[in-house]
């Protein structure tokens, strides 16, 4: 521990890793989820182009995890002083805490976005067959997102709890 602490600004390194994991993992999951839903959407739109609006809404739903990840990454970056003037400084403990705080939103965001994409894809199939039931397809898809929202909340509370400066 002594050795690690001797490295200058090692806390900042961990904080940066946390921000990168939050935005990177959640964003990667969202990209996969949106892609899964989008592939299903192409099929429906080729048959019925007028359903584009509804399909687009369903395709966008797994995209929110990426935004949640970005949000936590940004808060961590601001907290660790990575963006502002004056240079970054956090201690080793603070940096590690920020890294751990990023895990819920990064990991849950990654997994939930992929699975939400699968539900969205089947929802798009439902819209293709019965356009009037689009609302139910959206609701089913949003059920998955609940856990991404909870992870976002915990990540935020944890980041908020780290006292810096």
């Amino acid at each position, binding site marked *: 521990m002594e050795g690690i602490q001797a490295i200058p600004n090692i806390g900042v390194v961990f904080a940066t890793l946390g921000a990168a994991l939050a935005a990177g993992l959640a964003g990667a999951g969202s990209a996969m989820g949106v892609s899964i839903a989008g592939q299903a959407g192409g099929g429906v739109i080729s048959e019925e182009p007028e359903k584009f609006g509804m399909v687009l809404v369903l395709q966008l739903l797994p995209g929110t995890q990426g935004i949640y990840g970005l949000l936590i990454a940004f808060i961590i970056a601001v907290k660790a002083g990575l*963006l502002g003037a004056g240079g970054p400084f956090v201690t080793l403990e603070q940096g590690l805490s920020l890294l751990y705080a990023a895990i819920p939103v990064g990991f849950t965001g990654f997994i939930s976005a992929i699975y939400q994409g699968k539900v969205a894809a089947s929802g798009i199939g439902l819209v293709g067959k019965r356009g009037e039931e689009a*609302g139910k397809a959206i609701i089913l898809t949003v059920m998955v997102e609940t856990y991404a929202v909870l992870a976002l909340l915990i990540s935020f509370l944890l980041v908020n709890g780290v006292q810096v400066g």
Partner: protein
Amino acid sequence: MHALQRLAAIELISSAEARPTDGTLEKLEENVQHLHSSIALLSCYSEKPRMGPKPEFEEGELAGCLPTSLELSESAERLERELASARAEIDKRCALIESLSPWEGLNSRIEQLQPTNNVRFIYGLLEQADLDKLSFSDAAIEVFGETHRKAMLIACHAEDYEAYLRELKGLSFSEYEFPKLIGTPLENIKRLESEITDIKSSEKRIISSLNDCASELTQLRHAFDAAIIARDREAAKARLSATSTSFILEGWMRSDEKDKVFSAISAITDVFYFEERDPLDDEEPPSVVKNNKLIKPFETVTNLYSRPSPSGIDGTPYMTPFYFLFFGMMLSDTGYGLVLFLGCLLFLKFMKPSGMTEGIAKVLCLGGISTIICGFFIGTFFGMDWNDVFGTPAGTWPILFDPMNQPMPMLYLCFGLGLFHMLSGVCINIWRTLKSRDYAAALFDNFSWLMIVLGLLVFGSPSLIEGVPPALAKAGLAAAALGGVLVLVFAGRDKKNILKRAISGAGKLYDISGYLSDMLSYARVFALALSTGVIASVMNMLVGMIGASLGGTVIGKIIGFIIMAALLTFLHAFSIGINVLGCFVHCARLQYVEFYGRFYDAGGRQFIPLGYYPRFVKVK
């Protein structure tokens, strides 16, 4: 039938003995199909219809344009067929020209290339490279063409024919058969080319008349709606049981529209018999709900879940205030609320949508108002801190608290409102069960839970709020315990076996975890409120950084300002879109799962009266 369709008040029930159809319905259905296909066809030839409200028509006016439009659609379809055949002719001739083109240099007339007794002709195509390998001693060979595959004409003795052909087949030779034409190949190519020009000009003519037809597309669309209305009416007639001079019409109607229906029929004829009755037990009537103007849009949200069952109650009026509040708290940015409110208001005013779109637009419009208000209490203004906007010292605004800096109070507020929301659902169920005289269900399944949850809340309050007397906490615990005992003993009251009853009671008591997780679910209000504000401020910050990097010269400032304005508009528009979508669905979910789960009887069927269901117009 006309009068009833205009009224849109009766949903028909199919009579048991279906009338044999006389072909009218099929004819009308055909009209609909024809118009539909010609509209699809002509849409390729006209620019997209302008955005705007649907035009309004009288039903008679609409039906008036039907005959001419049917002719129009017929001629459009005929033109389309002509166009297709013209294009096929062109393709045929192009293919012919291509196959003839290697022979352009041949001067003989095609019809004269007939074998005689002594001389046979071989024609075909051969690779340039194989040309030198030929060693025909006793034949005249002519070679034509520019490409690497040469066209060649070989004249030889009849007895050599077979041998030569065999030798050629060993090479890259492919035999050619002249089409049955008259004249030299070149003459034929010239003739075909001029024919193509002719067909092309007639093709242009057809396209221009199709364009003319396309300018009548609006009329076709109206006629399509007229055809649908006529078809629906005829389809309804086919469901009646009738004799040659009379018919029986059976259907559902709203109890409050009885007089309207009665007077509509008496205005047409005085020879009729009108009878009404309540639904029988084994019948399943459709569900209709009635709400005032402010609550009506929220029926759309309920319909997305399910219609209420005919014996249940409509949850919309109870859900509306909660939806209004939670939507505002989730979006929680006064600037965004303002944009949403004005946007939806303009959309409603200029586009005059109907049906589900109208309902959602109105819900979002009201949600915008709620957002504007909530923004002052717990939110931001386009992501900016209120104190920066007003120039007040930190901590003055927002009125209640800033969720960014004080997350725990905001979380408690969400949980508190959530508990209130859920317990309201329980209360509604108590009222509902009392009304249907199911006192046991009211007391043991619902009131007991009120006691448990509220009791536990009071019991836990001293740790949160100072100055709560310990006696009150004890009373809360006692109430919760009493409620728990009620559930434990009576939840399985329909079971005779005492052991089974206890087990089922204990299982029910475990539902307390459901209350806990449902309460935690309201954390999404906080999370979404947070994400709106933070994303908006992140965008402001990023754009600010870009602006700062553009330097301080006058030109730099001007360019920077333009770029920043464009970027901010785009980014905030994106953020509004994604956040409004999220708020709408998450808010709806809180109603469906946490609120409706406590009292709502789903499974109703929509009331679809005989009426006008046009696609392109509105019928007055």
